[in-house]
């Protein structure tokens, strides 16, 4: 984090004062008071003054404004500046010969910084104007500092989010490598889950952030496989009943692992991640595991991830099997050969499968490249 000095003088701050007065002598006197420190610009009436202000927006550190002038008087200039919200940027001082109460009140109501009377007293004018210029300069500097710090904090927050996401992906990918897969599986599960939630009724009621969090949580569905021995996880053939029982524990072990990461508990994805890790092998008819949930006892996102997992497992080569053709994959899912899914989920899935297949083709090409 940068350190900022609030006493710092901003050397880039404007050092130009605009004097708007129809009387040349007044302009000379006011100019003389500030000419040793500031650049002076002059305008002989309100029209010329407004033109200078508009063509040099942000350039003037103060405007000294006469009241009675031909073409456009000082109050009219103030009205224009107020309507353009420029009185917050640049302090305006009304220089008036007569203390007409109505004029002074209107000027203050419009937002003039101060009213100075003519004939001016040089040191009074200088002191009052310079104090305000310094105040505005400091305020502008602090405003810039706050903006810069906010941008820095946002950038850091973004980095933390990216780091968290990167670590989650790294963890999930590391498990896949143990399983002799390339890491593509978790990417595909992420993509299918997100697409189905965004484009089917299974995402109804979920906002953009929630869908992103569920998709991110989906990549940790198999995190519990880290506890499964290599001999079982990488076994090329069919598992024995005993081995299968051990394999099934990756769901509960996954939740235990996620619960042990205390930092993850504060994350928006935690609840989704635990639910998906535990229930992505549940089935609509209650014949899944580990809790034998049935029907709508299984959350919509866990249902989506379980189907995405099956679709990807069948479509790709695994250590224990070759990849099936698209036709075969769809036939097996439809026939319930990998467990029974919610009929509405199947309808939703088949309505977007064409797109998912297209996506697979692109992902395969990208991975191949």
């Amino acid at each position, binding site marked *: 984090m940068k350190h900022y000095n609030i006493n710092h003088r901003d050397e880039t701050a404007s050092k130009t004062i605009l004097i708007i007065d129809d009387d040349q002598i007044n302009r000379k006197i006011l100019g*003389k008071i500030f000419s040793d420190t500031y650049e002076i610009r002059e305008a002989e009436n309100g029209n010329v003054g407004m033109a200078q202000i508009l063509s040099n927006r942000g350039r003037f550190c103060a405007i000294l404004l006469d009241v009675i002038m031909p073409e456009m008087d000082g109050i009219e200039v103030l009205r224009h500046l107020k309507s353009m919200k420029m009185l917050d940027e640049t302090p305006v001082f009304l220089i008036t010969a007569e203390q007409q109460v109505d004029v002074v009140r209107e000027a203050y109501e419009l937002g003039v910084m101060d009213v100075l009377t003519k004939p001016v*007293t*040089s040191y009074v004018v200088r002191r009052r104007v310079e104090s305000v210029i310094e105040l505005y300069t400091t305020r502008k500097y602090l405003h810039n500092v706050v903006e810069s710090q906010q941008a820095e904090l946002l950038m850091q927050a973004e980095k933390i989010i990216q780091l968290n996401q990167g670590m989650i992906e790294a963890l999930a990918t590391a498990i896949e490598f143990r399983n002799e897969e390339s890491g593509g599986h978790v990417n595909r599960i992420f993509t299918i889950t997100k697409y189905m939630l965004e484009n089917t009724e299974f995402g109804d009621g979920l906002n953009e952030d929630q869908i992103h969090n569920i998709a991110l949580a989906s990549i940790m569905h198999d995190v519990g496989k880290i506890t499964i021995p290599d001999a079982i996880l990488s076994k090329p053939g069919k598992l024995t009943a005993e081995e299968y029982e051990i394999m099934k524990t990756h769901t509960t072990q996954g939740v235990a692992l996620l619960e042990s990461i205390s930092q993850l508990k504060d994350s928006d994805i935690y609840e989704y991640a635990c639910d998906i890790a535990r229930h992505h092998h549940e089935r609509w008819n209650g014949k899944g595991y580990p809790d034998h949930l049935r029907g709508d006892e299984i959350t919509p996102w866990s249902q989506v991830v379980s189907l995405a997992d099956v679709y990807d497992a069948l479509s790709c080569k695994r250590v224990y099997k070759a990849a099936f053709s698209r036709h075969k994959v769809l036939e097996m899912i439809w026939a319930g050969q990998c467990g029974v899914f919610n009929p509405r989920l199947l309808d939703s899935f088949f309505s977007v499968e064409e797109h998912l297949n297209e996506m697979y083709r692109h992902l395969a090409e990208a991975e191949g490249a």
Partner: protein
Amino acid sequence: MKGKEELEKLGVDVDEGLDRVMGDESLYEMMLGMFLEAVEESSIEPGEFDGADLDGLIRKVHALKGTTGNLSLTPLFEGYVEVLGLLRGGQPKEAKAAMEKLIPVQKEIVECIKQNQG
């Protein structure tokens, strides 16, 4: 500054005028020259107080009041303040009388400035 004492004898507060321009004598002298031009360009005749263009007259008096005030030509400044107040108060006759008293004072100060200008 040349002619300072003569101006002070006529009631001009030269030090205050100089202070207003941060002690810059040449600038003050230049502005005295600008005052002479202003008096010539906007000379005010007593007859104007009887005319119809009182707004135009008020503008001229207002301008001269400002100039004399800036230069601390105090007797003139005070005189123009009075004339302007009377005009704005709808008393042109009284304003004319005040102006008639002011004209010789102004003439004296104008002559003094002219004599001391290079």
